[in-house]
């Protein structure tokens, strides 16, 4: 019995040795992630350029809204720091964010500190890479949510084993973390109609009306440091609304009382024949 336990323990130790391999230094991991991201951007851009050069990227009839990396960084950053409790034992505190819109890839690079509720001094610093993909337009607002695409521990106060634990914990609770990040609302107002008041003045009555506008997100191009959101927009048809009031006083009557020989001076006047 004891022998078999020992044999099992030995086999497990040998198997686990592979997992005990030293974690890569943060600089090397970052360089690798950078190269991977740039490679993805290049492949994505090559496809986009080919489409544009073939004349298949129609943008000229679309409303263009561009938001800079700085604006999105400050908008998302406004909700930071943001604390998320995982399993009541671990605290993940999102501390900073940086938006990147390059190479047809929209990215949010977030940094978080993970600590234990029981041992507050033990912590790990986590880097999370998010993307802004699904943009929606509703009630005049353009919004999107960040989806976390990758993450890694870049610093741990309690060694590599704890770093692995943190990564597993984040992996298991990714949905919870994603949902806790507030949605990004692009600070642009898009009206869904143009309303024009009518006019009732003297003899003139123009009915008010509204011009409905159909706006929908067509495509999103994160390039050159800006997030370009292109919207299909169609106006009309014009819908007249009922006039609010009846015509004011009878301008014609006034004119009739004081006829003039220079009719152009009056808004409405009568001609007069001398006997």
């Amino acid at each position: 019995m004891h022998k078999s336990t020992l044999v099992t323990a030995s086999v497990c130790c040998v198997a686990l040795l592979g997992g005990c391999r030293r974690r890569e230094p943060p600089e090397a991991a970052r360089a690798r992630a950078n190269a991977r991201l740039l490679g993805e951007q290049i492949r994505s851009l090559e496809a986009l350029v080919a489409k544009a050069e073939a004349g298949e990227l129609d943008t000229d009839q679309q409303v263009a809204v561009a938001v800079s990396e700085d604006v999105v960084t400050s908008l998302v950053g406004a909700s930071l720091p943001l604390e998320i409790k995982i399993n009541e034992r671990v605290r993940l505190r999102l501390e900073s964010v940086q938006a990147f819109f390059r190479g047809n890839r929209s990215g949010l690079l977030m940094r978080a500190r993970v600590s234990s509720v029981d041992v507050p001094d033990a912590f790990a610093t986590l880097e999370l890479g998010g993307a802004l993909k699904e943009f929606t337009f509703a009630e005049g607002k353009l919004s999107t949510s960040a989806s976390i695409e990758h993450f890694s521990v870049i610093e741990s106060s309690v060694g590599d084993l704890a770093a692995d634990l943190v990564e597993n914990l984040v992996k298991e609770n990714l949905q919870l973390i994603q949902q806790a990040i507030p949605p990004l609302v692009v600070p642009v107002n898009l009206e869904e109609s143009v309303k024009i008041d009518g006019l009732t003045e003297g003899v003139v009555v123009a009915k008010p009306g509204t011009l409905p506008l159909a706006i929908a997100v067509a495509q999103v191009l994160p390039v050159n440091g800006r997030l370009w959101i292109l919207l299909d927009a169609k106006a009309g048809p014009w819908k007249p609304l009922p006039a609010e009031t009846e015509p004011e006083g009878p301008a014609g009557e006034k004119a009739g009382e004081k006829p003039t020989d220079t009719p152009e001076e009056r808004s409405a006047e009568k001609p007069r024949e001398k006997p």
Partner: protein
Amino acid sequence: MTRRLAILLATLLVVAAGAVWYVRSLPPDLPPPPSAAEIETLRAERDALQERLRAALVAQGEKSLKDAPRGGIMIGIPTSFTRSIVQQVVTGLFDGMTLTLKNLKVHKAGEVRAKMVFRKKKVGDYVLDVAIHQVQGILEPGPPDLVFGKNRIGISLPVRLARGQGEADLRFQWDSKGLAANTVCGNVDTTKTVTGGVVPEDYRLEGAFAITTRGDAVTLRPEFPDLAVRIYVDPSEQAWGVVDEVVKERRKGCEIALNKIDIKAQLAKILGKGFNVKIPQKIFKPIRLPAGVTQSLEVQGVRLPITVKFTGVLVAPDRIWYGADLKLGTAAAP
């Protein structure tokens, strides 16, 4: 047995610790990370592709992209969309616009002279009064021509006074002068209700919308003169029939005298001058283009003010561009 096991366990622990130390001292099982130079090469390749994309978009129609005012937020509204909005708003406002004149009075009086044996002699005085209770003209716009210029959109709008109708009381008074006339004709004072239409007329309204910015959006401000419209009343067949009746109801001799007045011609003459109506320029309202920058934002239930600093507007043949820098403020103290 127990001692042997303990020794074995201790040996195993030492071996395991040595193995862990050895494995952890090995570099990660990955190819070497890319060097800074390799990353820089990739970055340059990406930037070159971004530039190619920009050039392809410009070649495809985004001519003004390079001149668009830069800012934290940039909004580009296609000219075709702006054109569609302006055309529909302007024609929508004029479509079915009514011009309603009420209680208009026109008057014509004169005398009739007839040859009586040796010389012409006055046979009577007449008075023709038309009291128009109401006449309403309806406007119909045509398709406007829009010309996009520097910071303004010129508009030429054809407007047709297309149709209309009205109702009036026609009063004809005849006062015979002299024994002969009084004997033959007597005096007449008759009032009839007549109807009429409006003579169609075409007008052209020329003006412009100035493209202005008011902090958070682009607004088109109207610059139009008043439009002077003249409504010409067109008596209906029924109205002419009524005039004929007035004359034919008289005796033959009287009819000859009244025909000298030619009531129809008099009526046509006094109505033919028309009635002036001024359509005020304020019929045009400012049109706010449908994309602007918000001036506050809700973050986790707190509304934060946004300071919008406008950086420029460009009216190009393909787009109207608007640029602004934003600064997120802090929530006001409760």
